[in-house]
């Protein structure tokens, strides 16, 4: 292969590589199309594009309580 042709080929490979990377980036950024199929009966796996569930606050390690009534109260008259 001659030098000029070799350079041309290398440029083409580089362009192809850039194009492939670009396509990959675009593909990974595309939002999943709206699903028109029937709603699945099992929970779908996270697509990465859903809004994550709001994190619930943790429960405290200790809670103090005052109990002002007898545990076994009689039936009121």
């Amino acid at each position, binding site marked *: 292969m001659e030098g000029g042709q070799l350079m041309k080929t290398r440029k083409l490979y580089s362009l192809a590589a850039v194009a492939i990377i670009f396509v990959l980036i675009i593909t990974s950024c595309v939002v999943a199309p709206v699903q028109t199929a029937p709603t699945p009966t099992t929970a779908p796996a996270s697509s990465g594009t859903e809004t994550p569930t709001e994190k619930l*606050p943790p*429960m405290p*390690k200790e*809670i*103090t*309580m005052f*109990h*002002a*009534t007898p545990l076994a109260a009689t039936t*009121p008259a």
Partner: protein
Amino acid sequence: MKLVVEYLVGTDSMTKANLMVASGTYPDIVSAGETAGVFIAANAFIPLDDLIEKYGTNIKKIYRPNELELSRAQNGKIYIISNNRPTIDNLYPAAGFYLSYAVLKDAGFPVVKTLSQYGQLIKEYMAKNPKFGDADTIGFTLPTDGYRVTALQYGAARFLGGYPNDGVTAVNQETLEAQLVMRMSVSKDFVKFMNDMWNSGCMDKETFMQKDDQYLAKVASGRLLGIYDQRWAVVNGLAALERNGYYDRTLVAFPVVVDGVEKEYYRGPYAFSVQGVSITTACKDPEGVFRFLDRICAEDIQKLNAWGIEGVDYSIVNGKFTRTPEQWQKSFDTDYQMSSGIAQFNFLPRYEQTDDPVYGKFSDGNWVNPALNQEYNDMRYKDYEKEILKNYGVKTFCDFFEPAYPARYQPGWAARQQLPQDSEEFIASEKALELALRK
């Protein structure tokens, strides 16, 4: 997570509540019972509305929408998640006009429905059987010692008139109109009944001056043919009667009404009361604490609280919760309940324990309340009780009664407990009770 609970020492919850409010020192949560008004007036509790909306997934599932609505204070905010949930079993009715099994047997096992029928059965049996052993037979008596006099003041009359247990008030179940029992004509009907029993020699002459232990001793003696009472109040007398071996003299409850009343409401609505758990202003992490209260209401936790551990305290056979006789016996043992944790968390928000097909069941169709399994009744009833049920062709002693149903309001006795003692309403009801005894 650790829950550190301080219980009331003694019985004066009002003094304790006022002391806590005066000091301004509170724990994270308070189960204030009838003292909730003291804390709310002192702004010691935080509104729970937003927390319920945001984190109350389980609470919204197990509390009926109208219960959460009824939980609103006068300012429209919710400060309390009730732990005083409706609970019933079908073993025995909570109240009724009781008759000795001997009377029922003698009369060919009648289902007793009216007061005149009830009185007639006592008179006829007494005429034939004036003595029980060496003692005189007693036809009818009532508890009248101290606060137990409420049976005479309004307890019996409201049921006779076709009303459920709303304390001193009778609430029409169609219109929800309320009135004082002592002012109703059925109160006079009941007094006339007692007068007739007295003149027939059937009324216990000590009725109006007996102490409660004397009353219970009469129940235990087997010489008593009839009473009106709530079962919890007479259960010790009935247990002694059983220990004495007087099985034929046990007392069976019927939903008696005066002539003309078409429907009885002895079991009435499921009793829902706005007494329960509140988060205080001192709580540093209300969201986290509320999450705990909601988590406690989840089905897996509630199964542990009500039934115990699967495989240890119960099994699942064909989808149905079941216990062996040994497991049932252990579940009745209060020491075992304490050590295993069964039914030990009823002071926190929880499922109702009724026979409602939705709110009284887990999502798998099993009753929340183990006592609603027929197995429970089979374990609890003694042979002589099974014989009575067989003779009547019924499965439980509640089968004589109309079933309970969802409540549309807080029961009158709970509402009265929440009234300030210097309010016009409370003073009026106290005055009416006093006048009823004077008459």
